[in-house]
Each structure stands twice: as C-alpha cells, then as structure tokens.
C-alpha cells in the first residue's frame, strides 16, 4: 500500500488493474468489500469507498444478494481512460527525468524504438 495516494483510490485501481490485465473478466464476480479489506488489511469502509467509486464510474454493478460484478464494456472503458491519462502519467515524468539527464526528444525516440524492438523479440521468443 503506497503512502502517496488515498487508500480507496489504490483499491479501486488494483481492481481496475485486474480488469485491464484480464485476470478479472467482464460479468465475473468482483471481490467483495470484506474480501478486499481482509486481503489488503484495511478498514472495510475504505474498501467500500473504492468499490463505490467503481460502481459510480460504471465499471462494476451490483447484483442484489449476490455481490459486485464487472460491467460489460468495463475493460474497453478503462483502456480508453488509461490511454487518455497515459501522457500525463508516464510521458510527463519521462520527459522530466530525461531533461535531468540531458536527453532530448530525438534521444528519447531512439531509445524508445530500440527498447520496443528488443521487447517484441523477447515476446516473440516466448509466445505460445
């Protein structure tokens, strides 16, 4: 649990991560508030806040008496959201760090291409 951001946000994010990553499929039952509280060892009210936020966003929905489920289209919604935030989350800090190291945009682009190529080779190497 990272000290930097509100716990309930981190909870929401971890659920979103599993949806994006594929470990939690659409229409599948999401972990309950109590399960999340127990797993992350946090106050259930905090876990509930995170879950409610996801319900409000339309990522989860409630089935009376059964529990929380992943809404249809949740993954697509999250991917869109994250792509939009990608620049803010990753590119801005990347640029800031690059500036400290005296790397300009061209240097960065070269580095990117290099590492992207290496990464896809690795993936190909281990693809099923």
């Amino acid at each position, binding site marked *: *649990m990272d*000290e*930097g*951001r*509100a*716990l*309930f946000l981190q909870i929401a994010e971890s659920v979103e991560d599993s949806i994006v990553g594929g470990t939690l499929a659409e229409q599948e039952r999401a972990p309950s*508030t*109590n399960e999340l*509280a*127990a797993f*992350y*060892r*946090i*106050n*259930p*009210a*905090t876990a509930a*806040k995170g879950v409610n936020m996801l319900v409000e966003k339309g990522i989860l929905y409630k089935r009376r008496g059964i529990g929380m489920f992943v809404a249809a289209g949740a993954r697509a919604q999250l991917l869109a959201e994250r792509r939009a935030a990608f620049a803010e989350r990753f590119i801005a800090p990347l640029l*800031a760090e690059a500036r400290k190291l005296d790397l300009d945009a061209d240097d960065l682009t070269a580095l990117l291409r290099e590492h992207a190529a290496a990464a896809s080779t690795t993936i190909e190497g281990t693809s099923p």
Partner: protein
Amino acid sequence: MSPVIEVAHLTKRYRETVAVDDVSFVVEKDTIYGLLGRNGAGKTTIMSILTAQNFATSGEVRVFGESPYENAHVLSRMCFVRESQKYPDDATAAHALRIARLFYPNWDQDLADRLVEDFQLPLTRRIKKLSRGQLSAVGVIIGLASRAEITFFDEPYLGLDAVARQLFYDRLIADYSEHPRTIVLSSHLIDEVAALLGHVIVVDRGRVLLDESAEELRERATTVLGDTATVDRFLSGRDVIHRESLGRVTSATVLGALSPLERRELADAGLELAAVPLQQLVVRLTLHAADTETREVVR
C-alpha cells in the same frame, strides 16, 4: 452521522497533574477509531472515564445519549478490557471466558473458541501464570468475542509478537466486516494500525491534537524535499511542523493540503513531494506541540 459517544470539555485532575485537559470529541457509530498518543498521554484515562471505571473531574460524557455511570443498560453494551487487566486470583483463561459469556449479551462462543485456537491460548493454566503475550491474548479474545456495540482495545498488542498482532488485526477486520460495530483502538504502534482506522484522534498530554477521518489525514500534511534555499522560500508563511537539513538539502513537513497547481509549481522548482505516513505525522505533530509549548513557557 450518529454519535454513540459524546464527550464535552472532559477534564480529569489528580492532585498535581491534569491527566485529561478539556477534551471534547464525538465517536460515530460503526467506525474504527484510533486513539493515538504517547505513553501517559491520557488515552487509558479517557477510556476509563467513558466506561465509568474512572470519574471525570468536570465535563460531560454521554454514551448512547446517557450518562454511563452505574447505568447497566449502557454499560452492558460496552466492553473495555484494559492493558494490564486484573483477573480473579485462581481464574484460568477458561474461567475468564466463561464469565465473560455470562455478562456480554452478544457473546459469540464459536468466535471465542476459534480465537483461542488461533492464539494458542492454554485454557487450563491459571491466568497469573500466563506469559505477557498470553495475558494480552485473553483480553483480545474477550474484546473480540464480546461483539459489544462499543469495544475498546487498550494497547491490546502489548506482549503479542508480530505474528499474533497481525492475527489480531486480521480477525478484527474480518469480524468488523461481518458484524459492524464501534471500535476504539488505542495504540502507539501507529503505522501498524494506520490502514485499519476510519478515524483518528491524537491525544498529547491530556489534550486532543488531532481529530479527523483517516482519509482527511492523508491531505493533512506534505513533506517537501530539495535544495535548502528553494524549500525555505516555500516554507515562509506556512505551518511547519518539522524541518531537518543534510548539507544543502532540506526536508520539511508542512501542514495543509497542496493544490494540484502548487504541486506542479513545486515539482517544476525541482522539489520532491511526499505524503506523510500517519506515524510520522503524529510524531511530528506531537513533538511540534511540545516544542511550541516549551518556547511559549520560555517566553
């Protein structure tokens, strides 16, 4: 918003010392409260007065809207097993639990049995022969299994090793999830319990230093780190509760939330921002309060 405990201007004076100094706060229903502070800050005294085991010098206490003193109707809905609780001389842990079962209307024997197993508590040994950890375990088990509407845990972890402590926190969360109730946990192992708390009350030398929800507390303070000159420029006009330097680098903790704009400005100025963990916040606030008071006295 339904308060179960209301404390107004509570003061407890002993001959030379003021143990509790004009304390006022409210405890809401079904929330986990952390009553944090140093040893001798007044936590146990406050809890004793709330449960009518001790008496206020002045001020008012209302539990479930009534005065708790000699009020069986209110008292039977509370549970307060103190840190070094005295048990009847010949009693074994089994006796203590059996007696608790007689007095607590919501007592859950299955939960008690499971906890006894979890904590590996020797039931037939006399309590006065138990180790410190086992003694704490008895109190913890009574507190949890009582399912009292308001349960106080007074430094419950003393003597419990890290494994047992984690066990306590886990069982607490699990049972609180299934059976929500009001819990007041006093502790000085703040970082261990920080994530469990819904609301925090910090007490220092008999006074309330902080009384906020755990969520609000995350915004309460920020640590700024970077070049001394830049940091000091930022610090002017702000409530600084901690400042230390190493060479040309200074780290300072300021009270007050920073807007996203301010954060961007600081980042651009080359300063690093970090959240303040609850324990650090409490420690720094407490030290700052002591420091301010000393300076005022000197003045």
